[in-house]
C-alpha cells in the first residue's frame, strides 16, 4: 500500500511555466487590443464633438482669416482619415501633439500634471490603505462586536460621502490652520529647501487626506469582506488545529490569501486614481491631471484631452496588467491554470 503513489500529479513544474507564459500572453493580447480600441475611440470621440482650436470658447471674435490660420496650424483642415494616420504616426514617436490652449507639447503639459497629482493621490492611497486595512482587519477579527459595527459604520459613512464635500468639510475644519488651495505658496521664492518642503507638505495635507478618506471606506469594507471570507476557509481551521495562535493564523495563513482580491482592488484603483482626483483637485485648485482634463474640456483643448484620455486608459490597462502579474506571483493556482 505504502508504495502506491496516488494518481499522477496534475501539473508539473514545466507545465506551470508554460501556464504562466500562456496566461501572460493572453493578458497582454487583451491589453493590446483594448489599447488599440481606446486610441481609435478617443481619436474619434474628439473629432465627433463640436468646437476646435479656433473655437468660440477659446478665442471669441476671431476673423475668418484668423480661424483658418489656426485650423491650418493644427492640421485641422485635412480630412479626418489623414488626421488619424498622422495622429498614429506621431503617437508611434511618443508625440501626443501640441496643446490648442498653450501650444506646448501635450506630453510636457501632462507630465507636469501627473507630477503634481502623484504625491497627492499616493499619499492619500497609502493613508487609505493603512487605515482601511486596519479597520477591515480589526472589524473582521472582531466580527459581530461593537468594534466591528463601529469600524464598518465609519467605513460606510466615509464611503458614502462625496469627495468634493469631504474636501470642503476639511477646509471648514482646518480653516486658517492649513492652506485650502494650490500646490505651494508661490511667493515663497527665496526660502530654503526645508521651508519649501514644509510649505509643500502643508498644502499637500488636506487634499491627500481628502483623497485618503474618500477611498478609505471602500478599502475597509472590501478588506473586511475578503478577510471574513478567508477566515471561513478550511485551511484556517487546519492552522488553528495545528496549534497556531489566532494572530499567527491570521498572519501566516489568512492574510496572504485575503490579500489576493485586495491586491487586485488596489491595482485597479491605482488606475482610476488619477481620474478620481478631479473633484478633489477642483476643490483644492490642485493643478493635477484631473484639473488639467477639466480645464482642457472647458477650453476645447482636444489634443490635450486625447493625450489625457490615452494616458488614463493606458494606465488603467497597465494597472490591470500589473494586477494580473502580482496575482501570478501571489497565487500559484494561476501559474498552472
Amino acid at each position, binding site marked *: 500500500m505504502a508504495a502506491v503513489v496516488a494518481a499522477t500529479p496534475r501539473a508539473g513544474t514545466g507545465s506551470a511555466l508554460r501556464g504562466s507564459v500562456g496566461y501572460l500572453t493572453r493578458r497582454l493580447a487583451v491589453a493590446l487590443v483594448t489599447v488599440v480600441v481606446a486610441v481609435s475611440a478617443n481619436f474619434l470621440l474628439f473629432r465627433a464633438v*463640436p*468646437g476646435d482650436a479656433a*473655437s*468660440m*470658447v*477659446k*478665442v*471669441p*471674435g*476671431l*476673423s*475668418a*482669416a*484668423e480661424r483658418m*490660420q*489656426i485650423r491650418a*496650424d493644427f492640421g485641422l483642415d485635412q480630412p479626418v482619415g489623414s488626421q488619424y494616420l498622422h495622429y498614429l504616426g506621431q503617437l508611434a514617436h511618443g508625440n501626443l501633439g*501640441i496643446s490648442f*490652449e*498653450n*501650444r*506646448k507639447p501635450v506630453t510636457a*503639459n501632462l507630465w507636469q500634471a501627473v507630477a503634481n497629482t502623484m504625491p497627492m493621490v499616493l499619499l492619500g492611497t497609502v493613508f487609505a490603505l493603512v487605515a482601511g486595512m486596519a479597520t477591515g482587519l480589526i472589524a473582521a477579527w472582531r466580527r459581530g462586536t461593537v468594534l466591528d459595527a463601529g469600524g464598518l459604520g465609519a467605513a460606510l459613512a466615509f464611503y458614502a460621502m462625496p469627495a468634493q464635500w469631504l474636501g470642503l468639510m476639511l*477646509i471648514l475644519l482646518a*480653516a*486658517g490652520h492649513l*492652506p*485650502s*488651495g*494650490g*500646490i505651494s*505658496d*508661490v*511667493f*515663497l*521664492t*527665496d*526660502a530654503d529647501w*526645508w*521651508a519649501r*518642503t*514644509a*510649505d509643500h*507638505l*502643508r498644502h499637500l*495635507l488636506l487634499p491627500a487626506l481628502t483623497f485618503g478618506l474618500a477611498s478609505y471606506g471602500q478599502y475597509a469594507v472590501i478588506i473586511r469582506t475578503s478577510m471574513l471570507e478567508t477566515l471561513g476557509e478550511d485551511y484556517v481551521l487546519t492552522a488553528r488545529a495545528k496549534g497556531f495562535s489566532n494572530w499567527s493564523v491570521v498572519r501566516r495563513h489568512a492574510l496572504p490569501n485575503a490579500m489576493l482580491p485586495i491586491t487586485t482592488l488596489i491595482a485597479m484603483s491605482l488606475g482610476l486614481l488619477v481620474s478620481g482626483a478631479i473633484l478633489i483637485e*477642483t*476643490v*483644492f*485648485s*490642485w*493643478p493635477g491631471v484631473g*484639473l488639467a482634463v477639466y*480645464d482642457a474640456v*472647458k*477650453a*476645447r483643448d482636444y489634443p490635450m484631452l486625447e493625450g489625457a484620455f490615452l494616458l488614463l486608459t493606458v494606465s488603467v490597462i497597465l494597472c490591470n496588467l500589473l494586477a494580473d502579474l502580482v496575482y501570478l506571483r501571489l497565487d500559484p493556482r494561476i501559474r498552472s491554470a
Partner: protein
Amino acid sequence: MAKGSPMRRKLLYGLVSVALVLAGSACTNSKADVRSGEGSVLRIGDTGSTISTLNPFLASNIFENAVFRYVYPYLVQYDTSGSIEGDFATSYQSTEGGRVWTFHTHPGATWSDHKPLTAEDAAWTFNAILANKDGATARFGSYLAHVQSVTTRGPNELVVTYDKPVATALANLSVVPILPRAVWGPYLSGDAGKLSGFTNDAPLVSGGSFILTSEKKDAYALFERNPSFYGPKPKLSGFGFQFFGSADAMISAIQQGQIDVAYDVPATAVSTLKKDPSLHLLTNKGTDEDTLIFNSSPGQTEHPELLDPKVREAFHLAIDRQKMVDVVTLGMGTPATSIIPLSLQNWADPQIGAEGFHPDKASQILDQLGYTRGADGVRVANGHPMSYDLLEPTGLTGHDRVVDLLRSDLAKIGVEIHVRVVDGDAFGDALVTPSPKAPSYDLAVDDWISRWDPDFMLSLNTCGQRGNYNEAAYCNSHYDALYNQQSTSLDLAQRKQVVDEAQEALNRDKPWMPLFVNPNLIAVRKNVHGFSGSPFVVDTTSRHQIDDSWLQ
C-alpha cells in the same frame, strides 16, 4: 521576523521626519509673511483666470495682456482717468489732418538684455505685423488698420502714416506691444509661419517696468523690477499674480496675509471682508456689462414682432434692473441702459434709455399693438404666443439668476421665456453664423467688457461685424455711418457728440438691451499703498496700478 525590523525602523524614521517637517511648518509660515513684507513684493490673487501663452500673437486671456503690459514697451498707454499718455513715446503729435503721427521715444533705453531699445524696434515690430496682418499676425493687424507706412527718423523718432484720419489711432497703438527683434526676428520673418509654434517662455527679455522671471500655467506669474526700464522706477522690488481655483481659497489667503491684493472678489464675500480690519475694499464702477440680445437679423422671420422696436421698448420698460443689481450683484453693481457703461465717464451718457422700470407702460404698449393675453396669460402676436427661447451660455456665475429675473419680469407683461442653457461653443455657433445666413435664436444673454475707447463697443453692432462680433446680427446703414463718423472725428468734443448719437440710434432699435454692470471689487490689505482701482479689474491699459504701488 528579524528581517522585518530594519524595514520597520526605516518606516518609523520616515514618519517621524514627516511629522517634524509638518510641525516645523507652522513657524516657517509666519516667517514667510515677514520676509515678503520686507522684500516689498506685491502679491496679487485672482480666481478662475490663467495665463496659457506668453506669445502676444496667440494671447486671449486678460492676464496674458497684463503680463505684456508690464514686460513690453508700448508707444502710449492710458492714465488712471482714461486719457492717453506717453509711455515709450515721450511726446507725440499728429499732422496732415490726423493722417501722420510722429512719436519721440525715450533716448538711451535698453532691453533687459542690455541691447538698445529704440524707435527702430517699434518700426520693426509694426512693419512685421503689417506684413502678415491677415495671416499669422492678425491678432494685432486690426489695430494697425489704415496704416500706410511706419518709418523712423533717427533712433528716437517714429512716424506712422495712415491712409485716412483715424480717431482711434492712439487707442489702437496703446494695445500693440513693441517686441525685442533679437528674440522675435526668426518668428516674424517671411510669412511668420513659425510664429504660432513659439511659446516665448519665461524669463522674457523685457523692456517694460518689470521682468517676468517665472510663470506656471494656472498657478502664478512672478515679476522682478527691471533695472534698465526707461520710465520712472517702480517702488516695488517685484510683484506676482497667483491664480486661485476658488474664491474661497483666495479670500482665506488675503485674510491670512498670504496675498496683498485680491482681484474679482465675489459680492457674497463683501460682508466678510468688510469686517476684516486689515483690509480695504476698492469698489470701482466696472465695465463688464450684462446684456439681453435680440436676434435682429431680417432673416429672423419666426417671431417678426421681436424685430419691432415697440415690442423691445416694452421689454425695456418691464425689466427691473435695480432688482437685478440687488439680487445678482447684491447691490454692488449698477443698472445699465446703454452700451457704453457709466464708468467710462468721458463717453457715457446717463440719459440714454433712462426711462426706468414701468411694467404698466410696457403692458400698455403691448395692448396697443393688439397682442392680447391668451387663456394662459401669455400674449398672442402674429398668431403665435409670445413665447421665446432665451439662450444662456454656461460657465458664467450669476447668469442663472439673471435669466430667472428676466423670465419673471417678462412673465408679468405676458411674455413667456424658455431658458436654454448651452455650452459656450454652441452659444457661439447659434449667435455668430457667417453672414448673410440668419442666426437661429430668439433672445440671448451675454456679457461684454468695454475698453477705454468707445470705438470697440460701438463696432460690435456694425454690419461689418456680422458673423464675427455682431451677436445680434444687427445692420443699419445710418448707424454704420455714425460709427464711421466717430472713428474719423479727431476733435474730442465733436467725437463725443457723434458717439452719443450712435448710442441713441442703438437705443432706438435696441439690438442689445443692456441690463447692468457687474461690480468691480478689489480687496487690498491696508499695508498696500498707491494701489488704484480701475474700471477694468485687472488693468491691462496702463502700468499705473502696480508701478505706483508700494508696501509699508
